[in-house]
């Protein structure tokens, strides 16, 4: 049995290298869309909340999700929860929500391929011999959806977008306006982000 959800060539070009995860993410997205009955998002309605974090492998699957669903980083439709898990919630404004997770048995079986021996030695995917990469990609494509994914409806899931605001304050250092949600405190005074020296990590993600 071969999956019907194979990424188009431009997905590999977009991603930059061949690896098994981009196609897995693409397939997750397509499975989610077929379960929900959702089309690829042209504009700004369909959100995906991958449960991945940073500094661990397999995040490449989010590029496949972007390609499949049209819920892109640029459109601010993709936000990580930083749980460090291989799963994602797909939330469509009219079709509802589902969660798809990779089955541990599948992850373990995939981990035995030679591709991962290269990765664990720190070799970048673009430098791994094509035959080694294609072997695992093809094996993944042969596995039935049920063996790869756990799919759970999430009827209770609610997404509440951030409310916009027009309030602004003068930065006490550069005397320029900054919208209040971007205002930071330093030495007891309100400052814009560049003047405060604080950057993104003070912001809560997801």
């Amino acid at each position, binding site marked *: 049995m071969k999956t019907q959800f194979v990424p*188009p060539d*431009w997905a590999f*070009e*977009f*991603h*930059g*290298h061949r690896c098994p*995860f*981009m196609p897995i*993410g693409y397939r997750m997205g397509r499975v989610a869309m077929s379960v929900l009955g959702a089309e*690829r*998002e*042209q*504009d*700004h309605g369909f959100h995906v909340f991958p449960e991945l974090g*940073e500094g661990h492998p397999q*995040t*490449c*699957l*989010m*590029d*496949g*999700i*972007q*390609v499949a669903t*049209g819920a*892109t*980083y*640029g*459109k*601010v439709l*993709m936000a990580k929860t930083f749980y460090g898990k291989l799963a994602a919630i797909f939330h469509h404004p009219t079709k509802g929500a589902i969660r798809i997770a990779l089955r541990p048995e599948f992850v373990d079986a995939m981990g035995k391929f030679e591709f991962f021996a290269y990765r664990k030695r720190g070799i*970048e*995917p*673009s*430098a791994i011999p094509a035959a080694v990469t294609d072997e695992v990609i093809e094996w993944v494509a042969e596995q039935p959806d049920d063996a790869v994914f756990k799919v759970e409806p999430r009827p209770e899931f609610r997404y509440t977008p*951030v*409310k*916009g*605001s027009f309030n602004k*304050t003068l930065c006490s250092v550069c005397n320029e306006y900054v*919208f*209040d*949600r*971007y*205002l*930071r*405190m*330093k*030495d*007891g005074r309100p400052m814009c*982000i*560049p003047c*405060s020296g*604080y*950057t*993104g990590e*003070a*912001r*809560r993600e997801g």
Partner: protein
Amino acid sequence: MVNPKDYYDAGLLLHGHKCPAMPMGLRVGAAAMNRLGVERARDGQLLALVELGEDHCATCFADGVQTITGCTFGKGNIKKLHFGKWGVTLVDVATGRAVRVTPRAEAMLANKQTEFFKEYREKGVPASEVPPAAVEPLVERVMAAPDEKLVSVGEIFPYTIPHRPHSFSSLVCDHCGEMVVEGYARLVGDQRVCIPCQEKLTGARS
């Protein structure tokens, strides 16, 4: 030399609708790559620091940056600085050489003073439903403008991954009375509050 026109079709496939911001991301990304003399990142060879926030117009810009630079959300080599600006700092990871490129304010303003924004986007019409006659000339203008009219390219500088000392400054949230690290405190009116209290009081978070 990377040519942004070679990446427009792929950018559009990823992004899902025609707008001027995605092409602007292609142009800014290309200018940065050409200034550094680097190729598209197949793996993590480049790092893109984008100054965008989450909740404002033209974040679509980031999909253009992903497409042309190969710095993708899935690979984790594109990061937001949350300044609410459109500058991009592109870093060649192996050498630490970096350059900041930003769209010219005049070019961004010219995009905003158009039928696409005034008659459609600001009235809540999704980008995919804007008539082609209102958006295509805008896309064409961004794709065809000479670099010097469109972008401002900085000098190459050495980039070191910032290491910030742990903060010892903290304050007591004026709303819940609990301790919060200063950089994580937010202002709501005259009150200095923690992030959950900011959400409670304003319905928004930053």
